[in-house]
């Protein structure tokens, strides 16, 4: 079967596709044959080569610190906190802290060294329980303080309670609106990716 020979306009279009690697082998060889016989296409090709060079030369250089700036400015992400490596680092830090504490408390003697694992576990437990206790204390104190403040303000009149109720309702609505918008934006972003 004879393939239809492309016309001059098609060869013109192929001239533009060739440097981008968008021509098949057969098309490339047809184009070469056409170029050998067509002076205007040869001229067009010279101009195209000059055009591509001019475009390449016009590219700007990126600032030297660009990568460093991006890497130091990376935001915290949800997936990062779920990463096993993040948890592993925290666990290792706590263990090292515990062992260090046990060594300090128990001294560096032989007797103390034999009790290191137990002492380490005890030290970690002490550390965690004191942290939890301190946190709970702070929380309780904050809530108590807030309670006293609210009692002082709201206890003045019924209108204060009504105004407070309206404020809470508005905040709830705002939060709800934010969540709905965020969900829509996420869905849109997922759709765009595909």
């Amino acid at each position, binding site marked *: 079967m004879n393939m239809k020979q492309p016309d001059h306009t098609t060869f013109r*279009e192929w001239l*533009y*596709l060739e440097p*981008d690697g*968008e021509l098949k082998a057969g098309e490339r060889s047809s184009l070469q044959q056409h170029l050998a016989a067509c002076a205007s296409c040869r001229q067009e090709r010279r*101009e*195209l080569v*000059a*055009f591509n060079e*001019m*475009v390449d*030369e*016009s*590219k*700007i*250089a*990126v*600032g030297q610190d*660009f*990568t460093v*700036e*991006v*890497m130091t*400015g*990376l*935001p915290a*992400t*949800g*997936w*990062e906190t779920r*990463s*096993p*490596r*993040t948890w592993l680092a925290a666990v290792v830090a706590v263990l090292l802290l515990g062992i260090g504490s046990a060594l300090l408390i128990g001294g560096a003697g032989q007797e103390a060294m034999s009790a290191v694992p137990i002492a380490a576990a005890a030290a970690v437990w002490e550390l965690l329980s004191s942290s939890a206790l301190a946190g709970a204390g702070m929380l309780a104190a904050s809530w108590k303080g807030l309670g006293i403040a609210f009692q002082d303000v709201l206890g003045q009149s019924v209108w204060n309670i009504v105004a407070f109720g309206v404020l809470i309702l508005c905040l709830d609505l705002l939060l709800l609106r934010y969540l709905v918008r965020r969900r829509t934006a996420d869905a849109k*972003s*997922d759709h*765009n*990716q*595909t």
Partner: protein
Amino acid sequence: MPQPNDADLVADILKGEQERFNELVGRYQGRLVNYLYRLLRSTQEAEDLAQEVFFKLYRALDRYDPRYKFSTWLFRVAQNAAIDQIRKRRLVLVSMDRQGTGSDDMGTWEFPSPDPSPYRDQRNRERGEAIQVAIDGLPWDYRELIVLRHFGELSYDEIAKLKEMPLGTVKNKLFRGRQMMKEKLQDFLTD
């Protein structure tokens, strides 16, 4: 040793090797900044926006689908960010002169950038500015494709996927866009 592909790098980063994100940044920073520079005409704005784009991608990295090319995703985010930036500029411009028509045509946003030229020597400055004038003279849909191909260095196939256009349309528009640019740059091409 062969270079890991983009999808492998993303997988490594998600496993906890966050520092490998700099390899992705290194791969795409030049193309991205040049792409944004040709749309925004300000080196500073282009670099700032490129950083924002990388931050956006990093935040959403766990939603990357490796069945699709990373470059297509990156330039889609960049394209949306550039359009938002242009619209913001236009709002400022309209509110400054109060002559705006309210049209959403992206072809009407241009105004001279206050940035100094990023080119060091006179010859490159002239040629770089001539290229910019030729790009700015293109209709918006041609301009987008030309900038994606020549400065974003995306393949025809990637552009077709990004713009959700048939491959034939991409080829045709790039052909016409380049011809239009060549006509405007004729003095530089026949030296």
